[in-house]
């Protein structure tokens, strides 16, 4: 029996992609006031970013309830006896806790392991994809756990932010708190370190920010896979991806849109790159 892989919607893997690759994607929830939307299920990225940039209600996010995980576990347990769950950083969301507490609600005999990726977005997504691939090729749960833990150490996610407003409002600003309150305007480059948002550096323009992302990627010697994501800057992200494609013709580059749940905290005009270093 193949091991079933579960991840959450912040991995930026869409449900359709997931279905194709054997990954169950569990959506978090975006709330605009009292209106609740399942991430990328009952709200599209287009609709979400339109409301984020034009609406006056500031959205919030919530983790999936343990029961949501339990339902998926029980369903998958009919087909397999091993499940691997990869969640976004437990320091940024209670999704990991939900996934953990749902294990007790499973009646069928099935081994379920949950890994806190201490990552977000494609930093988590590329690893989940790698796990799904290995699972299809016959890897068992213990092998997959080793694979995921190893891949996570090689997964680097950094992002250009247009503003820190959304991160601060959503209470996820972490170690980048010290960047707030500047008299001078600047564009931060942030990363996720030990599961928390951490600052890398500050630049004064979008162009300089995108250049920094490019230079960051090219500083790696050996790359297994790359990802470029955006919230509301598709053209700039495309150009960056194209430039990287020229520099690394042999590397697969995934292009995607940051899921609404992360978009709530990232805000408009953000671009992220993920480097999955080669072993």
């Amino acid at each position, binding site marked *: 029996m193949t091991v079933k892989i579960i991840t959450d919607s912040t991995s930026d893997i869409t449900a359709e992609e997931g279905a194709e690759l054997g990954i169950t994607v569990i959506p978090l929830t975006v709330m605009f006031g009292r209106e609740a939307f399942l991430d990328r299920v009952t709200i599209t990225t287009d609709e979400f970013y339109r409301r984020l940039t034009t609406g006056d209600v500031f959205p919030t996010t919530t983790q999936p309830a343990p029961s949501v995980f339990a339902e998926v576990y029980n369903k998958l347990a009919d087909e397999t006896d091993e499940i691997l769950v990869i969640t976004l950083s437990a320091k940024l969301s*209670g999704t990991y*806790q939900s996934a*953990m*507490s749902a294990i007790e609600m499973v009646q069928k005999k099935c081994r379920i392991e949950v890994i806190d990726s201490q990552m977000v977005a494609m930093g988590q997504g590329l690893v989940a994809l790698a796990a799904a691939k290995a699972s299809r090729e016959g890897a068992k749960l213990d092998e997959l756990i080793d694979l995921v833990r190893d891949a996570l150490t090689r997964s680097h996610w950094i992002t250009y932010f247009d503003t820190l407003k959304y991160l*601060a*409002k959503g*209470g996820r*600003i972490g*170690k980048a*708190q*010290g*960047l*707030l*309150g*500047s*008299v*001078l*305007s*600047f564009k931060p480059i942030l990363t996720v*370190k030990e599961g928390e948002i*951490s*600052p*890398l*550096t*500050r*630049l*004064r*323009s979008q*162009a*300089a920010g995108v250049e920094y992302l490019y230079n960051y990627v090219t500083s790696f010697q050996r790359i297994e896979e790359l990802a470029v994501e955006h919230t509301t800057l598709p053209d700039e992200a495309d150009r960056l991806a194209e430039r990287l494609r020229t520099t690394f013709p042999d590397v697969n580059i995934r292009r995607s849109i940051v899921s609404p749940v992360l978009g709530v905290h990232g805000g408009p005009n953000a671009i992220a790159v993920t480097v999955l270093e080669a072993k």
Partner: protein
Amino acid sequence: MKQTKFITGQDFREMFACATAWLEKCASDVDALNVFPVPDGDTGTNMLLTMNSSMEEAYRAPDNSSSAVAQAMAKGALMGARGNSGVILSQILRGLAQGIAGKESLTGADFAIALQEASVMAYKGLSNPVEGTILTVTKDAAAAVGKLVEEGDPDLTEVFEIAVQAANESVANTPALLPILKESGVVDAGGQGFYTILEGALHYLKGEAEQIRFRKPQMITSSVPMTGRPPELIAADEEPFGYCTEFMLKGEKLNTEKISSRLEKKGESLIVVGDESTARVHIHTLDPGNVIHIATGLGTVHQVSIRNMDEQHRDFLEMQKDKAPAVDMAIVAVVDGAGLAEVFTSLGVTAIVPGGQTMNPSTRDILQAVESVASDKVIVLPNNKNIVLTAEQVHTLTEKDVEIVATETIPQGVAALLALDYEANLETNASIMRQAIPLVNTVEITRAVRSTQINNIKIKKKQAIGLLDGELAAVGSSPTDVLHETLSKLDVSGKEIVTIYFGADTDQAEAERASAMVREEHHQLQVEVVRGGQAHYNYIVSIE
């Protein structure tokens, strides 16, 4: 939503037990917020210990009525109160108990009224109540639920929901009321603590006592932008903190007002609370012996605690360091003008040495700043050609690891500072910062101090002159026109941002005019105007 018409005394106790557990999860985070009234960094722990003592007593209540449990909790809190925040919290609980007196069970309206009593009681306990603290948060929460009761007969859960929401907003707004919070970029620690207690109680009412085992309270972020600490505060000697002195006074017919007046002049942050038989005293004093001596004349003294606040402050600094980004290094910058000092501090400079053109600081001044910062690794930004050398002397005079990044202008200093890599070590950062220097051009507009001739340009005394990267580029009568002309000598293709720092003798309207001029001419450039407040220079402009 779960409906709760009323709760019994047992529920009341369990609700606060849940709130205490919730507070415990973030006590150390609350500690790290503490900056007022003195940075001793123990607000969260103090509130938690106070709650613990309160809960212990709650289980000793003579019966299970809400009134009896609340009375017991108030007594426990008073006995175990620690620190400013703990004492105020005990007052809040005492007010709650008074509001609930005689009630068997508790409804939403009862609690709303009791919370108003609590707010009044909290203010009463202090000789000099300060807004932007737990007091304001309590008052705002009480006001919000008071309004709710006026409008109808609300459910208890609803009352707590409104109280939590109002407290949240109130905490986020504390920096607007208390400048020291704004300077430090934090919200009030006591306020955050009280908010967390209310939130924990709400979790209980909503039946989430189990779930919260896996969750952590949210720390509220300031809704007010942080302002840098003014440079004088950094350069000035620290106030002696003395001893945090606390004790319990027992006797007959104690008079808290009389106790207050006797101790008022003996120190700061005096709090005296209690009743006729028991009073709790908290004071920051340089002479705890004298305070205890006076107290023994007023009643019997119990539970004396005297802590050296210098030590507490050191622990606090250590804790702050943990909170700071991964880079363990400090940055010292030489800056003139309040506005520029704010720019630098808001970008993370640890200490400012006041100085600049015609006010060059001495090596000793810079050395002192280097020695004053908590880190052993220090980067110095001289920000002036004439100060670079002075700064370099510091190397030989300190044991610390110092890198002088030879910035010759303010724009170079800002560019270097922004380029800071939060993950890199001292040497790498110094190198990254040096690489940032040539990427920025500097224009400075000042007045000629004497008549002369440079590069075939005749200059009369007091004429406005424009320097482009230190070289004379233009002369004229109006500084704004000279700025315009100086900029025209620079190839701005490929440049993106112009920042205009206007000086002490230039008004904002004039600076905006200069900015409009630049925008007019170069549509691709983004222009930012910042009050620099520097002397001598009408404008300092960075082009990058």
